[in-house]
């Protein structure tokens, strides 16, 4: 029928390399806690390692890197709406926190 219905076929060596990389990244993010990094340093390191791991899993293990743009955009763009939700709830949480400080302490 259509082209592109053949399965994803990639060398096992690639998977092993990504696997090793994920191990290293997990160890690094664990060490962030182990060495008690605090504040902005901690948060940025956590986010960076998290995004790197998530990117590797989606791109290589889930084969997103080899899919066509139509599928990539259909799956990866809608979750960006969650960022709007996070923004709204962040403002909401801030407001709740301030009212609690005013009335419940």
């Amino acid at each position, binding site marked *: 029928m259509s082209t592109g*219905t053949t*399965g994803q*076929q990639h060398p096992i060596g690639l998977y092993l390399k990504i696997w090793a990389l994920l191990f290293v990244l997990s160890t690094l993010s664990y060490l962030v806690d182990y060495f008690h990094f605090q504040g902005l340093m901690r948060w940025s390191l956590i986010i960076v390692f*998290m995004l790197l*791991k*998530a990117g590797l899993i989606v791109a290589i293990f889930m084969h997103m890197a080899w899919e066509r743009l139509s599928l990539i955009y259909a799956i990866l763009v809608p979750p960006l709406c*969650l960022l709007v939700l996070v923004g709204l709830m962040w403002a909401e949480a801030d407001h*709740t926190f301030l009212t609690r400080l005013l009335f419940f302490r």
Partner: protein
Amino acid sequence: MSAVPMPSSPQPAAPPDGLRGLVSDWSSDRQAFHVPWGKAMMWIFLLSDTFIFGSFLTGYMTVRASTTVDWPNVSQVFSLHVGATEVPLLLIAIMTFVLITSSGTMAMAVNCAYRRDRVNAAALMIVTAGFGEMFVCMQAFEWTKLILEGVRPWENPFGAAQFGSSFFMITGFHGLHVTGGVILLIIVSIRLLRGDYERTGNYAIVEIVGLYWHFVDLVWVFIFAFFYLW
């Protein structure tokens, strides 16, 4: 009837790549995604699941940012004693490595399946399910430990009460997904061994199960970062 012979329709050209491909795929009459339908459906299911876990984590952020009571020291709550020393987050780190390892074996199972090496594919899927089950067992151990220490969805001895509700809801839903994945893996590996897919030679099902399994690992990456490390 006209006797003029109709010219045979030309072979459809390969669809273009890049942005032009995006437009032509989405505006095509019959098929937008050039993948097996099961794979497209799995991706759409995973998209909806992303919203479920995304909402959970956002809810967790909201209760954590709005409480006036100190959040428990997660690093200490999840520490384990090894001999005399207390190692922070040890069990969680091991669980992370177990899940990543299971993702690696799953990726290799997909590779074997597409080479029609169904025995090795099934074996690797069983190994994946084994690691998944190990993860669930460690999670059960962690739940037991915390429940015995007095953590409840409405209170806990370490700090803000919202800690318990977020913990049980988020890790509970994730554990449920892992358990479902283990069952799915076992069913598909049995069907692989029985040779159910040999007739059609269509082994896309292994990749589809693999997508689900990698997604479970993906969700854990976010839970690990936001719940355990933050």
